[in-house]
């Protein structure tokens, strides 16, 4: 009896040690982010000191105050938010409509059209950016929100993912609903979409994080300061024109990281579930 208790206690201690080790490993892995947070609370003299200095001497808030008062950080965040939010919403709408047609209708050219959707998934978007930049310019959308969003409004992968989800839905329920006088659009809007909440949330959230973190496209299609997104601005802060201090750049980095990390921590399970669903036979 006592030896068993001793053994139990031993496994418990081992488990605690193991978990402590994992947390430590996680902290080491996240060292760059932690370092960034620590630096954001340092005075400039601490950061540029020649010896190793990892812990801020005091809880210095000057960097954050400088970022808020000297840059239009909230305007940049609003730009990023509008672009990420609206294009993710649009993506959900366009993908759902297309997936609805591909799942519940038979029509001429269906297979060819679906192949065209799949084809877009193999073409790397980055290689199309130069031509798309010209198109955006010809449409007069440089320095506009529409221009910043235009290549994110549809995603072949999202159409595919939502179609996979709709396909689990029994077809006879729709037939029955239509016989009962429920219109096709009404069925889509009132019955199908509410039942597909999880996959729509996944598409929306992963698309939001995607667009929020994107760099090259908003860099290409904006050149006015007030239209910049946070991702573009952060790389310009420590260039000579704005001449910010390291501490301020790190403070701005923290401010920019907070929304995407918050979304990620809150919705981690949902994002994973959606990614998995898309991966199974993707």
């Amino acid at each position: 009896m006592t030896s068993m208790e001793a053994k139990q206690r031993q496994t418990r201690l081992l488990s605690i040690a193991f978990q402590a080790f994992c947390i430590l490993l996680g902290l080491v892995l996240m060292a760059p982010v932690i370092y960034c947070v620590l630096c954001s609370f340092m005075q400039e003299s601490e950061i540029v000191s020649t010896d190793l200095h990892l812990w801020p001497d005091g809880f210095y808030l000057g960097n954050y105050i400088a970022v808020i008062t000297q840059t239009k950080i909230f305007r940049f965040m609003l730009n990023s938010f509008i672009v990420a939010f609206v294009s993710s919403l649009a993506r959900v709408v366009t993908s759902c409509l297309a997936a609805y047609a591909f799942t519940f209708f038979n029509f001429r050219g269906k297979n060819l059209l679906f192949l065209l959707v799949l084809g877009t998934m193999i073409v790397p978007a980055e290689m199309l950016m130069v031509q798309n930049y010209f198109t955006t310019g010809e449409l007069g959308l440089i320095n506009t929100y529409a221009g910043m969003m235009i290549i994110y409004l549809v995603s072949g992968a999202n159409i595919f993912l939502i179609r996979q989800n709709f396909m689990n839905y029994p077809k006879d329920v729709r037939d029955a609903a239509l016989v009962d006088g429920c219109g096709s659009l009404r069925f889509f809007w009132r019955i199908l979409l509410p039942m597909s909440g999880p996959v729509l949330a996944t598409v929306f959230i992963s698309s939001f994080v995607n667009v929020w973190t994107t760099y090259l496209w908003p860099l290409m299609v904006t050149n006015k300061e007030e239209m910049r997104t946070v991702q573009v601005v952060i790389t310009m802060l420590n260039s000579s024109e704005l001449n910010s201090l390291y501490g301020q750049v790190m403070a701005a980095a923290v401010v920019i990281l907070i929304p995407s990390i918050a979304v990620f921590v809150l919705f981690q399970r949902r994002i994973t579930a959606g990614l998995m669903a898309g991966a199974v036979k993707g």
Partner: protein
Amino acid sequence: MKAGKRIGKTLEPYLYLVPSFIFLIGFVYYPFIKNGWLSLNIVNQFREIREFAGLRNYVRVLSDPEFYQAVGNTFIYVLVTVPVSMVIAYFLAVLARKKRKASIVYEVLFALSMATSDAVIAVIFQLMYSNQLGVINKLFGTSIDWLNDPKYALLSLMIIQIWHNIGYNFLFMLSSLRGLSGEVLEGASLDGCTGLKLHTKVILPLVSPMLFFLLLKDIAYGMTVSSYTLILTGGGPNGTTQTIITYIYQKAITSTNYNYAFAATMLGFAISAVLISLSMILEKKKVHYT
């Protein structure tokens, strides 16, 4: 009235496809075809066709040592960052597989890098890599100018990429490891299959569809990297961090040399198509679907 209704019924699915296809055609197929056509012509700085060139643009790009350097760098980048980040992520997923009290804490820590952005991570590493005040040189007592030394610049960018990839790969591997049935694993270990053998003979084949998916995703992503180069090195020093995308970007946007840029884009497509097909062959041989 009745005929109109029937036409409406036939048109209905097409109407649902219109919004998607406007953008898929306008921003995927149209630029692809236009780029392909323009690459066969000599264009001026306003992208107006001056004369048909056949494959002359391709010959010029293919005899440009800078292009080979960019392709070579991209290959090194993919060959190093993809396997290394997958191995590290697999190791972390094995550690985190069993659910424990503190699981949620270290799971989030292991996965968190996927919530960060290229740009923010780049400026953090820029400070850490700094020659004079960088924490990396201070920690290891070195005085390497990481981002400006031709020997270390590409390595420095690859370290950032590996770090960034770990979170995403970890999350996938974790959920696929957790999806394995406990009975299979117990049975295998009872049969004397333990340690490394358990992983190579039992677990890896079982999760191979997931590994393949990650491999494809990471390769496709690695082939089109550009942010770290554009933000941190501008392709330098001596072109050692130039990638295919930054080569195209600099030819097209910085120096408006469209003849090079458009041909290089088509070559870039071809290269990534070849890589994707190669991974498909690997899939046929190594991936087990149950």
